């Protein structure tokens, strides 16, 4: 009997830590799932893959999820309907500061369909800036063009709400920021999805401007990339307003990003800096951006270019 008790005790001592360890592991895994609601880039959190052989319990859970998603979508719609805007009316010909304020911490994350639309627009803005570079490939050096291309390619977008900048939950703006690794990242305010629905042209312009901000003169100067924007800034009389010094705000960065975004995605209104008789010259600069290399060469195909090189047939 005593031996039996001893064996049971030893067995208990061996099994108990295993059970405890497994319980802690399961708990941590579940916590991890709960905490992974903020997605960066193209990933869509919470999307479940349907399985043909799922058990009844899982199906019931899925039905509950669908119901919960419907309720969440209804709540989102109700909240978005009541969001208040700040800025000029829709009919205004002049663009102004415009945003729909968010509801703070209680503001729900955008639905999958809405976020898909924003992601498409973000990718489209990146593609448009890529085309802009192709269009102007003879106006800048190869090194500069490649640097600009890489910057756009590396840029990612974060789905709201963001834990790092929670004040954006009260705003409807987007900001260009950096992640923990120092890589460029666009963060959006909670009210931005409503802007995208109500004023799609303006929202697309804002996304394009956010993407173009990775080309700001100070960013390029910090990376020791030859800036293609000096003639444009001189044309806009902002040559001395680079604002790349310590503690300075960069007016030039807003000018460059606004000019580029306006070329690839019209906001549906005119930017005040290019409006009116006083700004005719500035409008000219914005419409035909002056570049450092303005000798527009013909665009030969690679085969013809090879023949045109010294020693070639032509």
């Amino acid at each position, binding site marked *: 009997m005593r031996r039996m008790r001893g064996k049971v005790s030893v067995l208990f001592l061996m099994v108990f830590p295993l059970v405890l360890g497994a319980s802690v592991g399961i708990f941590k895994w579940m916590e991890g799932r709960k905490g992974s609601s903020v997605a960066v880039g193209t990933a869509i959190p919470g999307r479940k893959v349907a399985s043909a052989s799922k058990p009844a319990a899982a199906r019931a859970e899925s039905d509950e999820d669908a119901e919960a998603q419907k309720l969440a979508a209804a709540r989102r719609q109700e909240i978005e309907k009541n969001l208040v805007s700040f800025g000029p009316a829709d009919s205004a010909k002049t663009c102004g500061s415009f*945003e729909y304020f968010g509801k703070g911490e209680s503001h729900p994350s955008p639905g999958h369909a809405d976020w898909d639309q924003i992601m498409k627009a973000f990718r489209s803005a990146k593609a448009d800036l890529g085309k802009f570079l192709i269009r102007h490939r003879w106006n800048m050096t190869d090194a500069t063009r490649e640097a600009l291309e890489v910057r756009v390619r590396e840029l990612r977008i974060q789905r709201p709400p963001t834990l*790092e*900048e929670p004040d954006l939950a009260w705003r409807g703006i987007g*900001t260009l920021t950096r992640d923990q690794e120092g890589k460029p990242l666009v963060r959006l305010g909670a009210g931005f999805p409503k802007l995208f629905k109500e004023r799609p042209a303006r929202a697309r312009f804002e996304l394009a401007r956010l993407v173009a901000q990775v080309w700001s003169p100070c960013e390029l100067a910090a990376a020791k990339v030859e800036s293609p924007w000096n003639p444009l800034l001189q044309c806009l009389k902002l040559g001395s307003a680079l604002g790349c*010094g310590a503690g300075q705000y960069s007016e030039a960065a*807003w000018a460059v990003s606004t000019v580029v975004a306006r070329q690839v995605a019209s906001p549906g209104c005119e930017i005040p*800096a290019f409006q009116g008789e006083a700004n005719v010259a500035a409008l000219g600069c914005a419409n035909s951006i002056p570049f450092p290399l303005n000798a527009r060469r013909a665009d030969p195909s690679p085969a013809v270019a090879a023949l045109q090189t010294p020693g070639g047939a032509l």
Partner: protein
Amino acid sequence: MTRKLVGIVSLFVLAGCTSLQNPSSMEALKAVEAVSSPFVEAFVEFAGPDARWAGPASLVVRVDTRQSAVAHVTSQPAVRAMAHPPADGTTAGRGLASEPGMPTPKARALFSELATQMQADAQSFSGCLYPVRVRLIRQDGSVLEKHGCRSHQGWPQAVSKAVSTFLAS
């Protein structure tokens, strides 16, 4: 053996006392005494660009803990009032004196936390698109002010969190 141990411990204690006599340590202590007056008011500005670029509007948040037991939070534009309009249709939003808000001691503790982060982080900014300006005012009238950039890690993110907490209170 015991004597050796006592000797070594005495040496460490002596070294600690001597380091306290260093001018730098004494200055640090004096600085701590000088700033012991609590922070009672905070201004935070997320500055937008010049209006001609039609960029994001500036947001200014002011938190005052001088007058009552509850922190008085105001913002320009009135983000909280617009986010949570009262049911009766009046223009006043949350943050009225009669409503529960953030208790003054908690708000001051947040100011103090923010000040610590602002002072610890010596990162300067250059060529900023989204400037952040913070001014913390102590009860004795002295001011701690710092300018930074939203895109930087460190204290600007602490400012964002504090502002969100104040607006939610």
